[in-house]
C-alpha cells in the first residue's frame, strides 16, 4: 500500500511517500503500530492523538481493513484557508 506524509510529518519520516507491504498489516491499527515502530519520533504524536488518517482520500477514524491498493495519508491538523 502507498503511504503519504504531509507537513511536518515528512520531517520525521524524511520521506513524503513510500510503499509499505507487510503480512503484519491487515488494518489501520496494524499500520499505525508498524509506523510507530519504524518512526519512533511519531509515537508522542500518536499518543497525543493529533495525527489524522485518510484512506483513499477520505478521513478515517475507525480501524478499517486495508488492502495493497489503498492509499493511506498521515498528516497533522490542517491549516488551509
Amino acid at each position, binding site marked *: 500500500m502507498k503511504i503519504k506524509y504531509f*507537513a511536518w510529518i515528512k520531517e520525521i519520516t524524511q520521506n513524503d511517500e513510500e510503499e509499505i507491504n507487510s503480512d503484519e498489516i491487515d488494518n489501520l491499527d496494524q499500520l499505525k503500530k508498524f509506523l510507530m515502530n519504524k518512526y519512533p519520533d511519531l509515537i508522542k504524536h500518536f499518543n497525543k492523538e493529533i495525527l489524522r488518517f485518510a484512506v483513499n482520500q477520505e478521513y478515517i477514524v475507525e480501524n478499517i481493513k486495508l488492502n495493497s491498493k489503498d492509499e493511506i495519508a498521515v498528516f497533522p491538523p490542517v491549516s488551509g*484557508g
Partner: protein
Amino acid sequence: MIKIQKEDFNSEIEIEGIKNLYSNIGASTSFVGYVRDNNNNNRVQSINIEVYKEMAHKQLDKIINKAKLKWQLLDCLIIHRYGKLDVNSKIVLVSCFSEHRKDSFESCSFIMDYLKKDAPLWKNEFYDKNNEWLENSN
C-alpha cells in the same frame, strides 16, 4: 468548480466567469483570504502551502454538496493556492451564487468554516529567522 493552483487569480474574471452562465443569479458572496504581515505577534515574511491535491478536491466537493443541500445555490467556486506565497498574496477565493443574498452569504461562510476544518492543506509560516507549521483552531 474547484481549482487548486499555484497561480494567482483575478477575482473579477473568476466570479464573472461563473455569473455569466446564469441570468437568474441575483447575488454572489465572495471571500478572499490573504497572507497577513503578522500572526501571533510574529512578523511574517511569506508562507508555504502544502496540499494533498486529490483529497482536497474530494473534500471540497463534499463541502459544496453539503452547502447545496442547505441553501438554494446556483453555483459555487473555490480556488485555493499552494506553494510559496508572499505577504499580501491571495490564498483562497470562495464564491457562492444564488438568486437571493441570504443563501450566498450563509453558504459562503459555511464553506469557509469547513474548508478550514477539513481541506488537507497546511501552512508553513516563515518569519525573520524561523518557520512554523500552523494549525487551524476555529
